[in-house]
């Protein structure tokens, strides 16, 4: 089996983010690392974050830093990754790419202990960069400029110290003196030598300054001093005239200012009042903001509270360090303060946000200061505060993040054309159920009812140079309605349009006159109000029209074509007539190429299943240039011109090209390339869009021509980052559409459907899914779908949190004490998303109050996803938490379908996994499945992490035991068990009489149940220890799994073994009695192996398109979605593996990781072709594309077509 791997949605979580001016000048951009993807974001004028560029780098990004050479206008990006190399990138604005300026190898690849890449620090003046590892190694590179002002990088200077752990590094701002880097280090050499453990207890962290002597080209340890043992992060303090220099050491509960030859200045971090005493407060992210006259720091704690830290200093003596409560936002992995007054918060889990500063925290608030620090016998006196709603920040935009995706299922619950992806995302109070649909999101701006059922709509400008449209013209069966666009849209009658007849086309003709084509003629309305009418000869009517700004072609009933041109005086003149053999089904004229008088091509579709290209040149007017036969009569034609571009917003170079698109009556969109000179058609592609014949319209998207196809659902064809994408829009069926532009809405679409006129805009271009989100209460763990009842059952649980009642009580208490009226019930706690909610403790913003680690809260929820309503919510009592669920039909059928939920009471992970008890709850569905009622609860001797129905009974994986239960009156009854599993059963799937059991650490075990002997036995297992995170049964012999290290693999029982077991009357049991090496007698074979580079949490076998083949869909912790499609032909396998090979050679990954080594990080990649790499083909320079294509005996166009085809098979 060969698979094609394709990322459907790139990871949405963010590892780290940096800001700077990467395109040069005054613009502010943000570079974010999403695991293996590097993204460039820019807030636009409206404060919306736009993604400019996204590059998959096939490696794990671990750290990012930006620097600027003195006097330069532009920031460079340094990337620390798992490649064992330091890479410096520059953003190339013209080509919209990241250009690799330098790549220096310093060590082995992989995330290793002593190979640098984990930490990056920059000298604030941009003269040197330090790259560090967790242990021992630190390298310093000197950055400089050569004579032509190119960036140069020196050979590495070592600052190693063995037996030393490094916690954080940063640059020290010391003006233009020798660059200094600071590091928090811990020397463990003594602790290692001392078996009594005393030295280990006394080990002390140090703050060490490393000085780079630019004259000697040497790094030396300049200064080292003890710091607080809780130190975890360093922040550079401005120096060299702007501030006192030195560093802020963030430690557990403290922030300490340190510098060489300066006494420590220490202040406590204020604590939340409800925080348990044993918990510390750790700073997890920091940002520094520097203006001419002042600077301050924003530090965020692990609970989400942000503090503004200011230093009171006189020259370089710091007198006081103040920590003032600023605001509370969800915990971030990085904070970026932009010069334009924005704060970008890259959330650890859940949506990222862009905030605008309303104030910089100058108002009085809870403050801790070094001056008021009090030391008592128990340590330093803490300062308390109460979180409040945002005062200094205002959220203006957010970017969706699915991180962490906990479970995912593909199902067509809503009975739409394509299945929906239901995913459980987020953590704690920010968790949600997200329904993903392939397609672009739209935002509806207006819907208005019309006095009838319209058949068509157009928008028209009064003058070519106008920015906005002047009229919306709507045609009905026997009338035409003209609406003028202004402040409001209202009907007008002075436009000159004939309103007593339906219209066939309305457009701007020449520079400033309007044309209305109706069945009996053409009405030409001149700018000064004069009206010219052209009448059809005899009783014939006009049936089809094609026009551009200077040319009009009409088709009369019977098949006559008449061609008009606008002459010099602006008159519409008849030029040519042509008789076609039969009725014309559709026609279109290509847009006028720049600098030309007329366009040369007319496309005519006929009912004899052909499309003809006719010439409009005066020399060979109405000559047939080419002919294309298609599978079904064409319904609509559209020429789409792709302008020549050398980069710009969309990446690589493109020569100008012209595409002819045809919507056929069988619902297929047919697309071919038109030769700009000869009019020959080539490179035909077709794609099924829906059940109705697609109608094609040209609209404007991001200033470029794009195509809107209206079939049974709307589709948009547009160019994004160098790819032509055809994506569905998540909107209802539309009849007719036109582009729309007014001063409220620059790029919109006006469409008619039913009796309504709709105006909408298309959002978030380039994304392949749009989502609707339904909030949940706790971290969701698993869910099941009840397809018949269209309900979901979700289990949610959180560790270290208080139950709803306790939270409610605590809330009430604090309300009473603060004098605020009582507010809300439990339901209100879940709608934290709306800003108007005056609740000062919206949990979504502040997180749940922390409880001790062994305390759990959990609930079982029945949800109707269609109405987003919860029909039943059972909060588990008594420190129980739910971990598994399944629906089960016991064979006696007394109750019908029941719900089994596996729970644990008092589960604890540290220092050892312990629990008080495990239970299996059995619930009964009532009221048509909407409500649950507990039937009984059975105590078991382990945590039931996996449940599954099997032959009218319940299979449960309880610790290392697989057990079969039957339903009793008061409890479940044990029927049979097998205790031979090595560790903990984490997944169970069944097919016929086979049971596929996944062990948490030991991969898959294939079991069988023998009813006559009532025995469960393992007949095959895997040879590789795998830490399973997800499992999916594929076929009788095959299972797919994902392990903790980010690999996906398939195992299969060899055919002969499988046959033998099925034929053997004992079912392979005799053999089972003689297992091998403490394992099963048979071993499964690994047939597929691939490193995804992200922890896969859910696998699902499904098809995302109607009628498409099944593929494996996976979701990851970082909120990405991907698919594996099995190849159906050997030719495709050959083609793609060769393409992949050439791509590996010609286009090595951006950050220096070897592609094949990355995909084989843990196990050698086997039989999977990396579609993400293949899809980078269009971004290559044209000559490179041609070279690869030559090697493959194809043209670049054919390769693109192949790539498009295979993508269309998946989504």
């Amino acid at each position, binding site marked *: 089996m060969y698979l094609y791997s394709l990322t459907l949605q790139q990871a949405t979580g963010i590892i780290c983010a940096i800001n700077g001016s990467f395109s040069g000048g005054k613009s502010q951009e943000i570079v974010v690392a999403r695991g293996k993807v590097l993204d460039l974001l820019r807030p636009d004028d409206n404060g919306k974050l736009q993604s400019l560029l996204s590059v998959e780098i096939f490696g794990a990004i671990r750290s990012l830093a930006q620097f600027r050479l003195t006097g330069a206008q532009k920031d460079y990006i340094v990337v620390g990754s798992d490649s064992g190399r330091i890479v410096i990138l520059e953003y190339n604005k013209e080509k919209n790419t990241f250009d690799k300026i330098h790549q220096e190898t310093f060590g082995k690849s992989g995330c*290793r202990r002593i190979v640098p890449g984990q930490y990056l620090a920059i000298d604030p003046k941009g003269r040197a960069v330090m790259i560090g590892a*967790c242990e021992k190694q630190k390298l310093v590179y000197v950055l400089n400029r050569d004579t032509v002002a190119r960036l140069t990088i020196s050979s590495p200077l070592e600052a190693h110290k063995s037996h030393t752990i490094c916690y954080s590094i940063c640059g020290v701002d010391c003006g233009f003196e020798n660059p200094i880097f600071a590091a928090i280090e811990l020397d463990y050499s003594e602790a290692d030598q001392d078996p009594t453990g005393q030295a280990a207890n006394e080990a002390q962290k140090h703050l060490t300054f490393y000085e780079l002597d630019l004259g000697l080209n040497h790094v030396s340890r300049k200064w080292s001093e003890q710091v607080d043992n809780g130190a*975890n992060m360093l922040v550079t303090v401005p120096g060299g005239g702007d501030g006192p220099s030195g560093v802020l050491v963030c430690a557990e509960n403290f922030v300490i200012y340190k510098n060489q030859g300066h006494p420590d200045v220490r202040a406590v971090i204020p604590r939340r009042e409800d925080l348990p005493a044993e918990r510390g407060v750790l700073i997890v992210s920091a940002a520094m903001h520097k203006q001419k006259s002042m600077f301050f720091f924003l530090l965020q704690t692990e609970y989400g509270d942000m503090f503004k830290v200011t230093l009171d200093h006189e020259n370089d003596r710091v007198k006081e360090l103040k920590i003032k409560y600023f605001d509370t936002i969800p915990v971030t992995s990085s904070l970026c303060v932009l010069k334009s007054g924005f704060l970008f918060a890259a959330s650890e889990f859940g949506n990222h946000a862009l905030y605008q500063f309303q104030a910089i925290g100058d108002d009085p608030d809870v403050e801790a200061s070094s001056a008021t620090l009090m030391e008592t016998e128990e340590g330093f006196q803490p300062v308390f505060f109460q979180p409040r709603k945002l005062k200094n920040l205002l959220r203006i935009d957010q970017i969706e993040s699915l991180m962490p995706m906990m479970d995912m299922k593909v199902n067509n619950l809503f009975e739409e054309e394509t299945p929906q992806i239901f995913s459980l995302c987020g953590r704690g109070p920010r968790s949600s159920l997200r329904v993903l649909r392939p397609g672009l999101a739209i935002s509806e701006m207006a819907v208005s009812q019309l006095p009838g059922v319209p058949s068509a709509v157009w928008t028209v400008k009064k003058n070519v140079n106008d920015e906005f449209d002047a009229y919306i013209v709507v045609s009905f069966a026997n009338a035409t309605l003209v609406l003028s666009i202004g402040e409001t849209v209202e009907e007008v009658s002075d436009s000159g349009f004939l309103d007593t007849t339906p219209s066939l086309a309305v457009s701007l003709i020449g520079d400033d006159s309007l044309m209305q084509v109706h069945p009996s003629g053409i009405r030409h309305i001149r700018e000064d109000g004069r009206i010219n009418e052209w009448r059809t000869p005899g009783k014939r009517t006009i049936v089809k029209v094609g026009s551009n700004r200077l040319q009009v072609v009409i088709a009369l009933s019977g098949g006559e074509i008449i061609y008009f041109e606008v002459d010099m005086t602006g008159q519409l003149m008849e030029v040519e007539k042509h008789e076609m053999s039969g009725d014309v089904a559709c026609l279109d004229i290509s847009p006028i190429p720049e600098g030309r008088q007329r366009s040369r091509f007319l496309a005519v579709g006929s009912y004899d299943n052909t499309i003809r290209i006719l010439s409009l040149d005066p020399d060979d007017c109405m000559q047939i240039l080419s002919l294309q036969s298609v599978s079904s009569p064409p319904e609509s034609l559209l020429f789409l011109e792709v302008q020549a571009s050398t980069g710009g917003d969309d990446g690589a170079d493109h020569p100008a090209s012209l595409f002819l698109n045809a919507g056929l009556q069988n619902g297929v969109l047919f697309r071919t390339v038109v030769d700009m000179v000869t009019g020959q058609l080539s490179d035909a592609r077709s794609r099924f869009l829906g059940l109705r014949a697609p109608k094609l319209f040209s609209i404007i998207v991001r200033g470029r021509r794009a195509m809107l196809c209206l079939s049974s659902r709307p589709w948009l064809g547009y160019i994004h980052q160098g790819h032509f994408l055809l994506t569905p829009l998540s909107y209802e069926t539309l009849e007719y559409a036109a582009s729309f532009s007014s001063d409220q809405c620059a790029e919109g679409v006006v469409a008619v459907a039913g009796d309504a006129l709709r105006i909408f805009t298309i959002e978030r271009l380039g994304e392949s899914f749009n989502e609707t989100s339904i909030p949940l209460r706790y*971290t969701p763990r698993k869910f099941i779908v009840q397809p018949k009842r269209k309900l979901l059952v979700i289990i949610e649980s959180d560790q270290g949190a208080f139950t709803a009642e306790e939270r409610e009580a605590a809330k009430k208490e604090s309300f009473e004490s603060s004098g605020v009226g009582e507010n809300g019930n439990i339901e209100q706690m879940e709608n934290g998303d709306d800003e108007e909610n005056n609740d000062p403790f919206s949990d979504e913003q502040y997180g749940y109050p922390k409880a001790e680690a062994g305390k759990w809260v959990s609930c079982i929820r029945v949800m109707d996803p269609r109405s987003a309503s919860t029909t039943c919510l059972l909060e588990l009592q008594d420190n129980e938490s739910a971990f598994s669920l399944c629906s089960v039909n016991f064979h006696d059928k007394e109750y019908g379908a029941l719900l089994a939920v596996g729970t644990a009471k008092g589960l604890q*992970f540290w220092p050892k996994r312990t629990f008080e008890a495990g239970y299996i709850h059995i619930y009964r569905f009532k009221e048509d499945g909407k409500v649950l009622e507990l039937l009984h609860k059975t105590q078991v001797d382990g945590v039931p992490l996996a449940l599954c129905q099997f032959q009218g009974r319940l299979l449960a994986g309880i610790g290392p035991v697989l057990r079969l239960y039957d339903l009793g009156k008061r409890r479940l009854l044990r029927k049979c068990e097998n205790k031979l599993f090595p560790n903990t059963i984490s997944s169970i799937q069944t097919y016929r009489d086979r049971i596929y059991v996944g062990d948490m650490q030991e991969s898959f075990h294939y079991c069988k149940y023998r009813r006559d002997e009532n025995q469960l036995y393992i007949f095959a297992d895997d040879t590789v220890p795998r830490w399973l995170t997800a499992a999916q049964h594929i076929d009788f012999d095959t299972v797919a799994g994902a392990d903790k290290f980010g690999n996906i693999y398939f195992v299969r029982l060899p055919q002969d073994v499988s046959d033998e077991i099925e034929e053997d009357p004992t079912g392979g049991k005799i053999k089972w009695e003689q297992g091998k090496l403490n394992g099963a007698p048979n071993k499964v074979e690994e047939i597929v192996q691939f490193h995804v580079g992200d922890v896969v949490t859910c696998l699902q076998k499904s098809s995302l398109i109607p009628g498409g083949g099944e593929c494996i869909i996976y979701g990851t*912790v970082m909120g990405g979605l991907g698919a594996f499609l099995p190849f159906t032909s050997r030719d495709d396998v050959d083609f793609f593996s060769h393409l992949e090979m050439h791509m590996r050679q010609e286009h090595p990954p951006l950050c220096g990781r070897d592609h094949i080594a990355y995909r084989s990080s843990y196990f050698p990649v086997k039989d999977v072709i990396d579609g993400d790499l293949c899809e980078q083909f269009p971004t290559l320079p044209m000559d490179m594309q041609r070279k690869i294509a030559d090697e493959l005996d194809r043209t670049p166009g054919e390769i693109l077509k192949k790539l498009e085809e295979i993508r269309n098979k998946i989504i």
Partner: protein
Amino acid sequence: MQASDRFNINSQLEHLQAKYVGTGHADLTRFEWAVNIHRDTYASYVGHYPIMAYFAVAENESIGRERYNFMQVPFC
């Protein structure tokens, strides 16, 4: 050191041990070996952000706290 010593197996081992942390030797105890494996493992966790996120969800802590714990555990 004589020229021949440089190619001697012991000096080669010493060189490896100095250069690559965790290179074992003949008298390595089970404990030392395990400690070394733990340190490698934690360093790998810290380097792979998705794994840290996975643990952070399991323990309901922030990723920053999780990273701090992983750096702290094996050495103190």
